[in-house]
C-alpha cells in the first residue's frame, strides 16, 4: 500500500538518491565555473607558445613526412620537414587571437550601435537598426569573402572582412536587451527616484545586457575559429609560409591519404580551440541561469 519512491521513474530509493543529486548539482556548477575559466587558461598558453614550441614553425627541423611520435616529433613533420607540433601551436595562437580580436571589435561596434539606438530611439534608432538589419539579413561568410577579395588577401584584411559582418549580432542583442529592460518597472522606479537619463542608462540599463553578451561572445569564439579556418582554407588569410591552421590543411590535402597527419593535425587544433569556446559558453550560460 504505502509508497516510498519516485514518481514516474519507479525507482525505489529515498535519501541516498537525493544526496547523490545534490552532489551532482554542486559538481555541475563547479564544472561550469571551470569551463567558463578555460578561455583565460588558453590565452595564457597562447602567450607562452614561443616558449613552449620545440622548433621554429618556419624552418625545417628534420626530414619530410616523419610520422607522429618518431624522432622526437610529437606530431611528425610536414612535406618540407617542419615540425608539425610547432606549426599547429603557432597556428592555434594566431587563430585564438584573431577570434578574440574580431569579438572585441564586434563588441565595441555592436554595443555602441545597439546602445545608442536603444537609448536615442526615434529616427536614430530606425536608421541604425535598418543598417544593422541589412547586415544581418545578408549571408555573413559570403560578404566576408567579397570584402577580403576586394581588399586583397592577408590576415588583417580577413579580420576586417569578418569584423564587418560580426558586429550586427551584438548590436541586436544589446538593443533588444535594453528595450526589454527599459520596459521593466525598475527603470520607472529609478526615474521616479529622480535619477537622470545618463546615470539611468549607465547604472540601471547597461549592466543588464552583460549576461547575454558574455554568453553570446564566448559561444562565438567557437563559431569564429571555425569561420576563420574556413576562410583560411580558401586562401583568405596570411600568405604561404605563415602557420595558419586552415591553410595548412588545405595545402596538405594532397598528402591526406598517405601522410594524413599533415592535414589532420591542424584541424585537430581547430577542434580544441572551438571546444574551449563552446564549453566556456555553455558553462557561463549555466552559471548565469543559476543566479
Amino acid at each position, binding site marked *: 500500500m504505502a509508497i516510498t519512491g519516485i514518481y514516474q521513474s519507479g525507482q525505489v530509493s529515498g535519501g541516498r538518491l537525493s544526496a547523490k543529486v545534490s552532489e551532482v548539482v554542486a559538481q555541475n556548477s563547479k564544472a561550469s565555473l571551470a569551463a567558463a575559466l578555460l578561455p583565460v587558461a588558453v590565452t595564457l598558453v597562447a602567450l607562452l607558445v614561443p616558449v613552449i614550441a620545440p622548433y621554429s614553425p618556419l624552418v625545417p627541423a628534420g626530414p619530410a613526412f616523419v610520422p607522429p611520435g618518431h624522432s622526437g616529433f610529437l606530431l611528425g613533420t610536414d612535406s618540407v620537414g617542419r615540425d608539425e607540433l610547432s606549426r599547429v601551436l603557432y597556428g592555434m595562437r594566431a587563430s585564438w587571437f584573431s577570434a578574440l580580436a574580431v569579438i572585441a571589435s564586434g563588441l565595441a561596434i555592436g554595443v555602441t550601435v545597439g546602445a545608442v539606438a536603444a537609448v536615442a530611439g526615434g529616427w536614430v534608432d530606425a536608421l541604425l537598426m535598418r543598417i544593422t*538589419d*541589412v547586415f544581418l*539579413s*545578408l*549571408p*555573413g*561568410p*559570403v*560578404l*566576408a*569573402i*567579397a*570584402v577580403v*577579395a*576586394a*581588399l*586583397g*588577401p592577408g590576415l588583417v584584411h580577413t579580420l576586417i572582412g569578418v569584423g564587418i559582418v560580426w558586429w550586427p549580432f551584438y548590436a541586436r542583442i544589446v538593443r533588444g536587451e535594453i528595450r526589454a529592460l527599459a520596459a521593466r518597472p525598475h527603470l520607472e522606479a529609478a526615474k521616479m527616484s529622480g535619477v537622470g537619463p545618463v546615470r539611468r542608462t549607465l547604472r540601471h540599463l547597461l549592466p543588464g545586457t552583460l549576461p547575454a553578451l558574455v554568453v553570446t561572445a564566448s559561444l562565438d569564439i*567557437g563559431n569564429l575559429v*571555425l*569561420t576563420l*579556418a*574556413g*576562410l583560411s*582554407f*580558401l*586562401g*583568405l588569410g596570411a600568405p604561404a609560409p605563415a602557420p595558419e591552421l*586552415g591553410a595548412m*590543411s*588545405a595545402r596538405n*590535402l594532397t598528402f*591526406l*591519404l598517405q601522410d*594524413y597527419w599533415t*592535414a*589532420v593535425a591542424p*584541424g*585537430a587544433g*581547430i*577542434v580544441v580551440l*572551438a*571546444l574551449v*569556446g*563552446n*564549453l566556456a559558453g*555553455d558553462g557561463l550560460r549555466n552559471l548565469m541561469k543559476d543566479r
Partner: protein
Amino acid sequence: MALFILRRLGSAVGVIIALTVVVFILQKISHTDPVHALLGPGASQAAIHAESVKLGLNKPLLSQFFHYLDGLVHGNLGISYRTRRPVAADLVEFLPATAELALVALVMAIGLGALFGLLSVRGGIAARIFRVVMLLGASTPGYLVAFAGLVFLYNSLHILPATGEASPGGQFQTGFVIADNLLAGQLGGAWDGLVHAILPAFSIALVPAVSIGRVFKSSLEGTLRSDYVRTARAKGLSERRVVAFHAIRNSVGPALTMTGLQLGLMFAGVAVIEEIFAWPGIGYYTAQAIPVSDFPAISGVTLVLGAGYVLINALVDIAQSLADPRIKL
C-alpha cells in the same frame, strides 16, 4: 496579412538593393584594376583608355552605379578575369550542383537537428551522449569531417566515392544530377548522384545541424514546462501525443528561423567542401576565383547568393506568420 507579406517582401527588396550598393563600393575599392585585369600586362595606353571608356570608368560615380545597376537588371554581372566568360553564364553552369548539394545538406541538417533536439530533452544516457556529440559537432570544421570520411569510408572501406557529383560516364543534362536522373527515370543514376552527395553534404550539414538542434532543444524545453503542456498531461493524454501535438508545434518557430539563418552561414563551408570534393558548384568556382583575385566572379556570387538568401528568409518569415494564428493584420 497581405500587408505583412508585402512589407516583408518590400524590406527584402530593400536589403537586396543595399547589397548591390555594398558590392559596387567593394568593386570600387578593389585592389585589382579591372582594365588591367581584362587586357593583361602588355596592353597599349590607347587600348587601356578605350577599355575604360567602354566600361564607363571615366563617368561620375553615381552614373557608374546606375550603369552597373542597369547591367544587373539585364543579367550582366561582368566578365570573369579567370574564365574570360560572362559571370552570369558561369553561374548558370555552376549553380545547379551547389543547389543540389545544399538541398541534401539542408535536409540532413534539419533531420539531424530535429533528432538532436528531441533526444536531448528526453534525459537519461541518450541525452548525455547527444550532448557530447553536439558539442563535438559544433567544434569540428567541416573539412575535418570530410577528411575523416575520405580516409575511412573512401580509402579504407571503399564505401563512398571521393570526388565529383557522379561516377565517370554518368548521364545528366545540368548540375542537378539527382533531379535529372529522376526525371529521366534513371534510378541508378539518381542513386549514384546521391551516394556522391552523402559525404560532402554531411560535412556541410554537421555544424548547422547542431545549431538547429540547440535552438530546438531549448525551445522544446521551455514548451514542455509550459502551463498548457501541464494541462495536456492533466487531460490524460499520452506523453507521445503531448509532445507531438502540443509541444513540437509550439517549438518549431525558433528552430525554423535558425534554419534560415544557417543557410547563409553554411556558404563558407560549401566553398571549402566543394573544393575538397572537386564538386563542380559555385563554391568550387569561388574557391578557384579567390587565389587569382577574380573580383567580378566573387561579386557575382555574392549578389546571387545574397539575394537568394534574403528571399528565402523572407519566405521563412512569411510561412511562420501564416502558421501562427495569433499574428493577424
